[in-house]
């Protein structure tokens, strides 16, 4: 039986990559991802992890080296954040379109300028359309579990796609939490060895990354889209299987105290933990408030979302990124679009908050929920409001 112990989340994430028996780690340092890659370097240096560690000269090369390693059939891992993820941007499209499974943990952090090393979801949302599977985790245990699940999901022959596991910078990466690290033998039971169907191999030569003329480009993109949509079944299946082996099961949208609630708040990542406490308090005060925690961001869980909000009046969405000059928060606008065609749908009220490491306290969430309810009743002059901003 695996034992539960206090571990720094970054260290535990690196241990999860080791437990997954990665062959190649390629990474470039960036706060707040550093502890993950430092610990992996240590594991390789100490001989605990038998893998090649490539200390590349940039994130662009980090992702490019992951692509090269994955193309020869190696199980590959990397981690980054913020500017690093943005520097990788064009390579991310290549990794997904050329169908290279790999796992990357993103220590979510705000984007420059002004430079901020602190957390929000600007980086994650900026790569929303790159064709990766994106999973947002709420705590250290989820991060560990989803790194292992990430390999199983991405490497499944029905999927063959890269997976990003998003954990909030500092709020998760730099905290010590009670974490149950899975036993190696159980991971081996859950995660079969990686066998890429058509690697670069002189015995069976293949051409990868050919020029796609107009007669084929559309079909390639369509195939990619269908494939990512269908990957949801494998995500669900993998989470179920994970539950059978390890006793912890995950879902695309987790519901917390939603029974009988007419108002729900939707959050992603670590802030969900504080939001739960706020919901507890409001429930204690007799208010019928509940919480939705969105875990699977790509492929988007349309069905689960529609089901989760079908009986409520108001859905308050917290975004930790801004789509400038547009609808405010990318999550909120996505949810509005997802519900537009529903006959019965709740009012969707959007807030942006928690930018660049700005904390939202329990009282803050309560205030936001109350303001959301008020906007639902009276309306707002704006498409969205920024919570806690000094004007």
């Amino acid at each position, binding site marked *: 039986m695996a034992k539960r112990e206090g571990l720094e989340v970054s260290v535990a994430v690196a241990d999860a990559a080791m437990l997954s028996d990665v062959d190649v780690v390629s990474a470039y340092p960036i706060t707040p991802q550093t502890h993950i890659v430092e610990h992996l370097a240590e594991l390789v240096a100490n001989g605990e992890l038998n*893998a090649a560690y490539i200390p590349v*000269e940039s994130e662009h090369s980090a992702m*490019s*080296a992951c*692509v*090269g*390693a994955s193309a020869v059939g190696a199980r590959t891992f990397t981690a980054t954040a913020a500017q690093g993820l943005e520097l990788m941007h064009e390579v991310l499209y290549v990794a997904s379109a050329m169908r290279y499974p790999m796992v990357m943990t993103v220590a979510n952090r705000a984007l420059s300028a002004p430079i901020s090393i602190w957390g929000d979801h600007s980086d994650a949302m900026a790569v929303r359309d790159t064709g990766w599977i994106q999973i947002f985790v709420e705590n250290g245990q989820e991060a560990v579990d989803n790194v292992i699940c990430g390999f199983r999901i991405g490497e499944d022959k029905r999927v063959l796609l890269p997976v990003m596991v998003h954990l909030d910078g500092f709020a998760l990466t730099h905290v010590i939490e009670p974490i149950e690290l899975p036993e190696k033998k159980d991971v081996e039971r859950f995660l079969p060895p990686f066998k890429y169907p058509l690697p670069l191999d*002189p015995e069976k030569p293949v051409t990868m990354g*050919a*020029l796609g003329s107009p007669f084929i480009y559309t079909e390639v993109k369509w195939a990619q889209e269908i494939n990512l949509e269908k990957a949801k079944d494998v995500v669900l299946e993998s989470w179920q299987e994970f539950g059978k082996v390890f006793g912890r099961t995950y879902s695309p949208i987790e519901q917390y105290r939603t029974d009988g609630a007419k108002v729900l708040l939707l959050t992603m990542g670590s802030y969900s933990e504080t939001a739960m406490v706020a919901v507890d308090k409001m429930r204690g005060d007799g208010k019928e408030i509940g919480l939705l925690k969105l875990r699977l961001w790509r492929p988007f869980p349309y069905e689960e979302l529609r089901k989760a909000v079908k009986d409520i009046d108001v859905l308050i969405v917290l975004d930790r990124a801004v789509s400038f000059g547009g609808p405010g928060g990318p999550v909120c606008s996505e949810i509005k679009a997802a519900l537009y065609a529903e006959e019965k749908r709740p009012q969707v009220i959007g807030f942006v908050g928690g930018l660049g490491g700005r904390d939202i306290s329990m009282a803050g969430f309560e205030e936001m929920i109350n303001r959301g309810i008020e906007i639902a009743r009276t309306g707002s002059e704006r498409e969205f409001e920024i919570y806690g901003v000094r004007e």
Partner: protein
Amino acid sequence: MATAVHGPGKITELEPFAPGHRACSGCGEALAVRLAAKAIGNNAIIVNATGCMEVVASPFPYTSWRIPWIHTLFENAAAVASGAEAGLKAMEKKGKIPKRNTKIVAFAGDGGTSDIGLQALSGALERGHDFVYICLDNEAYMNTGIQRSSATPYGASTTTSPAGKESLGQTTWKKNMPAIAAAHDIPYVATACPSYHRDLMKKVTKAVETPGPAYIHILSVCPTGWRCPTDDAIKVGRLAIRTGIFPLYEVENGQYKLSLSLTKLEPVENYLKTQGRFRHLTENTIKEIQERVTREYNKLVELSGKSGGEASS
């Protein structure tokens, strides 16, 4: 069916780079790739940067590559090669795949090497990956329509360094990529040109057999961009070497060695006048180029000591 011919100096019939690609007629670069591929052999993985050779060799659903080949982006060939090399080595070490000594060879143009891909290349050389990097230098961004790069020679007219009343064309001297590669203290650096095909193949073979990073810089005549007749690529390449404009040499473990003993350099004018890109040059500019070429060549002779040798052509 053709009768097999045997001869002591016969070049291998192996053609990992197949005919039927879509390079312009007279392309010196396709010839360079073909010769290099013969020397590389079948036990290799090619990583190709975006550029002419990627476009002409892989219009889906066709491919000119009979050996495994990957293209992803413009500036990252060296980084992709790093990952492929490390991936194979790691899996071999873990017993996941048999040990086969497969060589990783990256190809990129002069833009993909000396401009946008320089950082990734420097990183890969510094980290000491066991791979060969071949720069196919046709001295401008030919794939996008003859725009200048840092490898474009002084005085050349390109679409972004056009000669005009106020400009002689390219106003900077060609970046010395082989010297930059050699400055990484890698075991093997060489320059080559398909006009000296045996020399080219010998150097590629040596690079493939060298453990660690090796860099080969191949001058690839581009009749389209250089404005010369399509049947002149070999001649123009030979003149580039005979005038000292593009000297052939090796740098083995830091030691420079000229590949050809040229007792006397031909005047640069003989080379410049073969190409329309230099048509506008004045006598003064040609003199300036001559002085620079002579000076640079003498530096190389000095670096090589007395170890110059004769390359067969």
